């Protein structure tokens, strides 16, 4: 059983179990009640101001003198919501009990980001930029915090509408207690290993348009080499009678049977592909796996 199936079986109900529920007495009664609810005009936007953030183009020109210093506005001026900070790389809004960060620079200066967090009182947040595929269109965002009540989530708000040139946006608990770490993707340098793996066959990646999963190792290696890329291997040793696996990384080619199946191909860096291989029957895992 795959791990997806294990997860699926934990659903209290599946949609198929609810077949016919859209026409029950309960559904009919709710619809009648809803139509009695007074409708209101379009919802009021919670934020008090909509200030376009400075674009990168402007910053590259003479306006950089004016915009060189980020400005901080006392949150009290905007009550519970509104812009509280803006710089070249980030605009920050206060929204209720959270701060909303709008990132406008795809390769920001970590010190500038760190300063932005400090300016709004999030001194305990350590900002770390991690190398990701330069072809990745949106920065990767990661979060680790010791405070169990803390939250970081990608916002569902209209990032580009709120801030011109916004690449990604996320919310962070304003009243954060204890240390936390924010990871944000930056374009990897040539040859630099990606901190976040990415499917090598998706659009924009080195092997876009190919299908690697399901091929034998020999077949997959041939396809990868046709793209002038190097190959590294990872073995997936199954756990729990087939549910889940543990990955053994950096496996030499001499330990990989050409007839074993490839599960997927990921970009290791801009010149190499990691083939995740499922060992065939009878293969012996190394000690500890």
């Amino acid at each position, binding site marked *: 059983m795959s791990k997806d199936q294990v*997860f699926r079986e934990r659903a209290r109900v*599946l949609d198929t179990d*609810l077949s016919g529920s859209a026409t029950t007495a309960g559904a009919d009664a709710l619809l009648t*009640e809803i139509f009695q609810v007074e409708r209101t005009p379009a919802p009021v936007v919670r934020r008090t101001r909509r200030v376009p953030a400075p674009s990168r183009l402007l910053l590259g020109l003479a306006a950089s003198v004016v915009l060189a210093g980020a400005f901080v506005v006392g949150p009290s001026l905007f009550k519970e919501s509104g812009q509280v900070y803006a710089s070249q790389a980030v605009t920050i809004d206060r929204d209720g009990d959270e701060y909303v960060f709008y990132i406008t620079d795809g390769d920001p200066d970590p010190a500038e980001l760190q300063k932005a967090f400090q300016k709004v009182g999030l001194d305990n947040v350590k900002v770390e930029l991690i190398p990701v595929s330069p072809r*990745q269109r949106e920065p990767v965002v990661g979060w680790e915090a010791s405070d169990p009540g803390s939250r970081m989530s*990608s916002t*569902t708000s209209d990032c580009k509408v709120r801030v011109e040139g916004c690449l990604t946006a996320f919310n962070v608990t304003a009243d954060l207690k204890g240390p936390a770490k924010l990871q944000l993707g930056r374009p990897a340098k040539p040859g630099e290993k990606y901190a976040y793996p990415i499917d090598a066959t998706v659009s924009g990646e080195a092997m876009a348009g190919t299908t690697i999963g399901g091929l034998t190792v020999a077949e997959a290696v041939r396809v990868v080499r046709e793209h002038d890329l190097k190959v590294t291997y990872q073995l997936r040793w199954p756990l729990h009678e087939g549910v889940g696996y*543990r990955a053994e990384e950096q496996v030499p080619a001499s330990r990989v049977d050409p007839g074993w199946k490839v599960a997927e191909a990921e970009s290791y860096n801009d010149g190499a592909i990691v083939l995740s291989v499922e060992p065939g029957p009878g293969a012996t895992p190394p000690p500890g796996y």
Partner: protein
Amino acid sequence: MIETNQQHTDEDEVDETDEQSRFEAVYRRTYEQILGYVMRRCSSPEDAADIVAETYVIAWRRVSELPQGDTAKLWLYGVARRVLANHRRGERRRETGHAELTAETRRRYAMAAPSRYDHVDQAMNAISDDDRELLALSVWEELDPGQIAAVLGCSRNAVRIRLHRARKRFARALKDARPAAFHPRPLTNEESR
């Protein structure tokens, strides 16, 4: 002048009727999925009924923004997600009574298989809320990365990467939470006979 006012009133009524028809069509088409989405994430039938009701009340208030076609379902998942999050934070609104829906939902919960806490639940609890929600949208709602991206308001590529990582973390959590029965231990005298 009177005729003009009357004309406006008639047009308003026609608009209202059109919007009611459009809303009802979306409501009937998406009800099972939204009810399922909420039931899978809510331990109490009363809360589930409240969240379903509030989701559709919000959709009705914002009917002019309700997308056409299959996108409506994704939009409603997004609304339900926010209502659920508000509910968990203690922010509750109740603009409908929906007594019959609550009663039906109680019956559905009673019919659902009794839960048992084991190593799989332990693994599901060990991963982050974000990872669990991503896996749930993929496995329970059977959404592809593009659809998940529409629900969460992020890019398809970001979803692919996060989903990949979530699957790895869930697999690792399953391994760490393996049931005690799986751990090798010496047999007792009675067992070894």
